C-alpha cells in the first residue's frame, strides 16, 4: 500500500527562538531550519512499514515555500521514495495545510497518511485531525505503537490518563507521538541517493484550494520573564524559605 507522510520545515529544536523587537514574529533569518521532529518520527514509521513489507511506496509531502525542498530531501534521505512540494508563499494555517494535503490525497489515493502530532513552531496540534475530518477518514492521534493487518490499523495512543488502543479501518490518518520510534540518521550514501529521487512541485492554486488565512497574527511577545536563579545552601534553609518566604508550605 501507498503511504503519504507530511513534513514541515521549522526552526531547529535546538535553536533558542528570539522574538523580533517589533513584535512581528520570531527571528527566522540566519536561523537553522530542520524537519519538525514529530515528522521525522512519521517518516521513520513509514520506512519501517516498508521494511516490514506493508508499505510499497512512501510519498513525502510538504506545503510552503521553495525552501521546503530541503526538508523533503531530508525525508528522501531517510527513505521516502518520492516527494511532492505544494508551493505557496502564503503563511499556512493548519486548516489550509489539511485542505492541500486532502486534495493531494484524492489524487494519490494512499491507504495511510502519517503526520507529526504537532509542529514545534506553532504547537497547534491540528493538521492530522483536520485532514481526517476533511477526508471523512478515521484518525489515530498521538500514536506510540502502530500495527497494520487486514485493512486495519491498531494504534496505541498516549492520552492523559495513560494509554488507549484504537482500531481504525484503512484508509486512515495517524499522528505520531514521541515514543513511536527513534528515527535513524540519514547516511551519506542515502543523502546522495536522495538527490536523485523524484521531487514534484505543485502550486496551491493547481489543487484548487483557497489558503487565505482565517486567523490574523496581531503580534508576538516575549513570555513574561521569570526571576529565577535563587539558591539555598541546604534542606533546612529550603524548607524554612518555603514556609516563611514563599508561604507555599504551612508553618511548622
Amino acid at each position, binding site marked *: 500500500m501507498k503511504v503519504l507522510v507530511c513534513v514541515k520545515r521549522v526552526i531547529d529544536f535546538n535553536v533558542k527562538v528570539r522574538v523580533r523587537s517589533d513584535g512581528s514574529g520570531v527571528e527566522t533569518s540566519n536561523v537553522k531550519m530542520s524537519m519538525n521532529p514529530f515528522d521525522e518520527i512519521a517518516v521513520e514509521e513509514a520506512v519501517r512499514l516498508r521494511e516490514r513489507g506493508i508499505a510499497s511506496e512512501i510519498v513525502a509531502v510538504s506545503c510552503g515555500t521553495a525552501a521546503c525542498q530541503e526538508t523533503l530531501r531530508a525525508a528522501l534521505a531517510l527513505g521516502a521514495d518520492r516527494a511532492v512540494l505544494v508551493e505557496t508563499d502564503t503563511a499556512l494555517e*493548519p486548516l489550509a495545510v489539511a485542505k492541500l494535503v486532502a486534495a493531494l490525497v484524492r489524487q494519490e489515493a494512499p491507504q495511510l497518511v502519517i503526520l507529526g502530532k504537532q509542529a514545534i513552531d506553532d504547537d497547534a496540534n491540528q493538521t492530522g485531525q*483536520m485532514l481526517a*475530518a476533511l477526508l471523512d477518514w*478515521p484518525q*489515530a492521534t498521538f500514536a506510540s505503537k502502530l500495527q497494520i493487518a487486514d485493512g486495519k490499523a491498531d494504534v496505541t495512543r498516549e492520552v492523559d490518563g495513560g494509554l488507549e488502543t*484504537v482500531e481504525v479501518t484503512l484508509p486512515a490518518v495517524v499522528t505520531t507521538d514521541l515514543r513511536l520510534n527513534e528515527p535513524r540518521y540519514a547516511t551519506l550514501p542515502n543523502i546522495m541517493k536522495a538527490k536523485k529521487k523524484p521531487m514534484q512541485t505543485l502550486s496551491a492554486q493547481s489543487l484548487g484550494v483557497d489558503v487565505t488565512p482565517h486567523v490574523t497574527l496581531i503580534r508576538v511577545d516575549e513570555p513574561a520573564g521569570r526571576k529565577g536563579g535563587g539558591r539555598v545552601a541546604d534542606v533546612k534553609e529550603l524548607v524554612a524559605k*518555603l514556609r516563611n518566604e514563599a508561604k507555599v508550605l504551612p508553618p511548622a
Partner: protein
Amino acid sequence: MNVLVLAEHEQGTLASATLSAVTAARALGGDVVMLVLSAPGDAIAQAAAAVPGIARVLHAEAPWFAQPTAENVAATALDAIARGQYSHVVAAATSFGKNAMPRIAAKLDAAQVSDITAINAPDTFVRPIYAGNAFATVRSSDPIKVVTVRATAFDPAGASGGQASIDTIAAAPEVPAAKVVGQARTKSARPELTSARVVISGGRGLGSGENFKLLEALADKLNAAIGASRAAVDAGYVPNDYQVGQTGKIVAPDLYVAIGISGAIQHLAGMKDSKVIVAINKDPEAPIFQIADYGLVGDLFEVVPALTAELDR
C-alpha cells in the same frame, strides 16, 4: 449567540480542565451551553447542570460514548452546533480536546485557535508558540470560532450551585471506522497531575524507575502529584502520562519541585508558570536553576530523604 463547551468527564465527574474551559467560555459573552456526551445512565449531565454559569446542558447518550472516539464526539457535536446559534465552540486542551476539536473545526471550515492562555476580545486570543518561548496574539475571522483552552491559565469554575436546564438530544449514528479496543489507565491515589497544588517531578537523574519511589515519600508528605521529564519517560522509568512539557502535560501548581531534571526547553514549557519552583540537581550549571526560585545543588539521593525528614520537623 451562545458559547458551546464540550465537556470531558470520567466516572461521573467533570474534568477540572473542563471547569477551566467554562471560565474561559464565560469571558466570551453569551450564554454558556455545555455539551455532555455519555454512556446511558451516567449521572454526568446533573453534574454539568450544577456548574455555576452554565445556562443549559445538552446531553446525548449512546453506548459508544463510554469510550469516546474523536469521530463519534465530532459527529454529535456538529449536529448540536448546527441546531444552535453559536459564536464559539470551546474545550480544554487535554488529549480529549486536542483529539476531537480540530475534527469539529475542519468540518465548520474554522481555523482552530489552540491552547489559549488569555482572551483579549471575543475574537482575539493569546496563545503560546515555540514551547512557550513566545506568545502570539491572534484574531479569528471565523463566524464560529473553535478554541481550545490551556487549563492552567483559567481558574476552574465551581462544581456546585448552578441550576442549568438539561435538554436531551439525539446522538449522531455511530462512526464504525474507529473503535477503542483497549485502555491501560495509570492507577494512582495521588492528586491529578494537572490540577495538583504541589507537583514533584523526577528526571534522568533518578537513574531508574525503582528510584522514583524516593519521590513517593516526599509526595505523600506534601499531598503532591508525581511528574517526570521526557528523558525519564523515554528511559522507561515511569509511564507516558507522567510527562510534563511541551508535548506532555502543562502544569502550574503552587509548588513545583524538579528533582534530577536538567531543564530542557521542552520541559520548562510545561511547568514554568508554576508559582514557586524548587530545583534539586547535582550539576550547578543545569538550566533548571535559571528559572528556579530556590535551587539546591546536591546529590538528590541525599537531599530528597533529608527534605522528607525535614518536613516532619
